[in-house]
């Protein structure tokens, strides 16, 4: 299972990639593995806003339906519509093709409590 070092993570199993003023958000390899085959995903509209620790979408697998929790607050600048038609991308490439939304970073404070790859890996070991 992979946990790229250049990403930040949440305890709700989302990853965040910070580039300039933009944060790209998706779900982790561990999340997709626990969910099993993803069959449906629901994302917010482009131009909408998301709130830190609040649900911003839904991901559904053959086992369960789970909320997606936003790691930060801000406006949604881009949505990956491609994964709505091909949810299997979430299982195949969770850190690449299956990114979910891009958010304009409102406050750097939002990013302060996110986990590093090592911290996240330790967290899921404990959760097991």
């Amino acid at each position, binding site marked *: 299972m992979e946990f790229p070092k250049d990403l930040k993570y949440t305890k709700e199993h989302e990853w965040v990639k910070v580039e300039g003023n933009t944060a790209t958000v998706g779900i982790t390899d561990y999340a997709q593995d626990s969910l099993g085959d993803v*069959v449906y995903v629901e994302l917010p509209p482009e131009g909408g806003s998301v709130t830190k620790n609040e649900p911003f979408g839904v991901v559904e697998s053959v*086992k*369960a339906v789970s909320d997606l929790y936003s790691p930060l607050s801000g406006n949604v600048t881009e949505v990956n519509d491609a994964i709505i038609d091909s949810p299997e991308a979430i299982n195949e490439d969770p850190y690449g093709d299956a990114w979910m939304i891009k958010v304009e970073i409102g406050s750097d404070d939002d990013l302060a409590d996110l986990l590093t790859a090592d911290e996240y890996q330790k967290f899921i070991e404990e959760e097991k």
Partner: protein
Amino acid sequence: MEANGTKGLLLNEPLIFEKSSEGRVGVEPASFDVPRADAAALIPGGLLRDGLDGFPDLSEIDTVRHYTRLSQWNFGLDSGFYPLGSCTMKYNPKVNEDIAGMTGFTRIHPYQSEDLSQGALEVMYELEAYLAEISGMDAVTLQPSAGAHGELCGLLMIAEYFKSKGRPRTKVIIPDTAHGTNPASSHLAGFKVVPVKSEGKGVLTVEAVKAAIDRETAAVMLTNPNTLGLFESHIKEIADLVHSKGGFLYCDGANLNAIMGIMKLGDLGVDVVQFNLHKTFSTPHGGGGPGSGPVGVRLVLEPYLPVPRIKKAGKKFKLVTDRPKSIGRLKAFYGNFSIMVRAYSYIRRMGGEGLKRASETAILNANYIKERLKGTYQLAFDRPCMHECVFSDKLQQADGVSTMDVAKRLIDYGYHPPTVYFPLVVPGAIMVEPTETESLETMDKFIEAMRAIAQEAKTNPELLKNAPANTRVQRVDETRAAREPVLKWTGVKK
């Protein structure tokens, strides 16, 4: 070992549309003894149907064989053990069907006058009183048509209560051990859902509620016993806390079958509860339903109950609709009446002592299975359970075998699989609810099958991964079915 599951002759059957032969009919109606009129001359064109595309032409025997064969592919409670956790698949005694089939009940019409419906009204009035007594509530409505509909009814009454006091509240607190439908019902009633995590032992703590509760909280909505099959032991303190903030305690009564006759939810400080008659009171489930989800409330919420209410004046029963604070009507006519008759029959036949014994036996049976399978399968919470117990696939993971594989293999042994991957708080959950109606011998055979499967997982995991083998259709591709659903029959093969 001797297994229940075996192969037998099951006949193939095409879709009913594929059996159609043009011009074939089941019944030939008698010839008209009045002159035939032209429909188009009598009924406006927009209301007339052109034809009935694709409607199959079949004889009576074709139709009977079609449905008989389909019914032989079914697995139901009348054919075998069905330990589907959280669903309470207890046996439904046939006497309930006899009572519900009495012509006084089946030949009644909802537009019939009150004078001619006294018997039906009496059954409903008494059933309300029995449910009130069992739960310790002050008043009950029978109107909601299923458990989640009952939840919505309860929450709408709570919302209306705060609105009528001129200070509407916005939030409902729901622990992760609550029944899965609770957040959806709260959302539908206009509330914002505040989720709360249960602590390590699988129950809700007062501290967790304290951290989430405020004056915007209309209700705390918990399920007791909760969805892990555990008793929410802090319920009384939680009730006191929510009352001190002016809110209500809603208890989802979906698992009432583990406590009925033993204790009353009202004594624990519960203000609203719904009853799932199709679970606790042995009325039919799901497609064989319909369901029924009566709701009980404390006196303070009584004015908000749906209309009509049944009142007794002297020896006569009447329907009352003039109740200004009521949330209105939730269901056409009076709810699913024939289901109420079955529940009434069950309660009368069991009596208070019988209901208590049913709860005790349900708890004993679940604990028996829990203790005898502990170690073979990882137990999610190693402590006494109520009416159901939760295992996981943790011990099978090393062999590359998952909960789904175990569940599918159980079908080969002749059992309906338990609930899987629920509750969500237990990864790879296997949730077993034997109910009180199963014998020791049935449970022992099930336990043997579960142990044999755990052994197969070690020696021949492929057997599990390819299961079921004995069924008409082997492992289906659930992922593809969900990703590319085919929802409509699209044409006759000619």
